[in-house]
């Protein structure tokens, strides 16, 4: 899809040829998008760094498997989705991660550096984060990817499901978030009336 317009394709083709300089450039280009997606999901910087390395190592080893059906970025984020989902499901069950909701809304290494955000915004972020923690991995990923600015079709490619499934997952995720807050909460001031 749109691979003829893919800005990453030239660089990626060099990676397929096992060009290490190109791989370094690709790593630099994708580090931030991968980090942002995974830190939202996994919350812990040390885990995210490990997963990003794992994703990029897979990109290096499996570059030859890329068929150009999607954009390079979609393919790479798709690898991150599968690895992130695994880690998310694993860490959700770990007792040490049960207190995540306490840290809800705090992104490691960034939250403390934003004193200009109002208390209200901070509280909203914490509410949203604690609600997100109640979602299953598939719903959570669709929600995160949407909020990070991916199109519905891109998410369908990343996750590997039809566009309509993405829409349905997003719908259920939204509904569950609202249930989490209760109908009087700030995310949903006007109750009811939806589909």
């Amino acid at each position, binding site marked *: 899809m749109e691979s003829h317009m893919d800005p990453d394709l030239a660089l990626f083709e060099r990676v397929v040829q*096992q060009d*290490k300089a190109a*791989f*370094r450039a690709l*790593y*630099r280009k994708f*580090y*931030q998008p991968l*980090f*942002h997606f995974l*830190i*939202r999901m996994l919350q812990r910087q040390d885990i995210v*760094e490990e997963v990003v*390395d794992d994703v*990029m*190592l897979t990109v*290096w080893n499996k570059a030859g498997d890329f068929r150009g059906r999607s954009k390079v970025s979609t393919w790479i984020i798709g690898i991150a989705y599968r690895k992130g989902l695994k880690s998310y499901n694993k860490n959700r069950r770990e007792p040490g991660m049960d207190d995540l909701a306490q840290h809800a*809304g*705090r*992104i490691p*290494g*960034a*939250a403390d*550096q*934003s004193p200009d*955000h109002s208390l209200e*915004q901070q509280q*909203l*972020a914490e*509410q*949203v*984060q604690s609600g*997100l923690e109640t979602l299953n991995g598939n719903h959570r990923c669709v929600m*995160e990817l*949407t*909020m*990070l*600015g*991916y*199109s*519905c079709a*891109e998410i369908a490619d990343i996750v590997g499901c039809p566009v309509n499934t993405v*829409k*349905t997952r*997003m*719908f259920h995720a*939204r509904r569950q*978030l609202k249930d989490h807050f209760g109908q009087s909460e*700030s*995310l*949903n*001031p*006007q109750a009811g*009336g*939806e*589909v």
Partner: protein
Amino acid sequence: MTSRLLGSSHKEQFLNLPWYVNGTLSPDLREQVRAHIEQCPVCQEEVASLKRTQAAMTRNLDPVEIDEARLEHLMAHIDQSDGKAVKREKSTFFFGTLQSFIASLFSHRLAWVAVAPVVLVAVLLSSSPMIENGTAPYKTLSSGEQTGEQTIRLNLTVGETLNREEILQSVTAVVPGIMLTPEANGRHVMTLPDDASPEQVIRVMDKLRLHPSVHDVQRVNE
């Protein structure tokens, strides 16, 4: 187009709202959704709610600096894997060729008489490190192969209570002929015989690391 807009259902447009808010709908669909929102208070509220959610979820996403040390570590890992892959390929090629050659012999029984001496030589050579590597038998201890003609030295940092005889006795049970030479600064150098296998070297190092008088063991390749 107007009739199409009015006819589009609330449900259909409601499901598109998240991507209306994140700005990734196609221009046509965006216009359809916008027209529906104008006349639907439920969708108007959902858009406002989605915008608040998005703001809450992306508020702390600051630019991320790359950890250069991690990148170098990853590249080193890739370099290492490359080495192993090249070696595997060579080895697979040789044995693959040999296998298909032998397989062809089974389909022509009489040919055995003519080629048996050749096969014998090939099998003998295949066990030689020269063939396996395609190069002269230079080895490192970490390669998990026979150590060839290298001198194997271990640098030991030891405590004051070191009992040389006792340590030597424990490691010579693994490989006979080990020597232990004191050096300056409380260090000792342990020299292993050239023909010690990597497994033996590792077992010696494990024994040393477990020994209460030995604080550190470092392998030195020469």
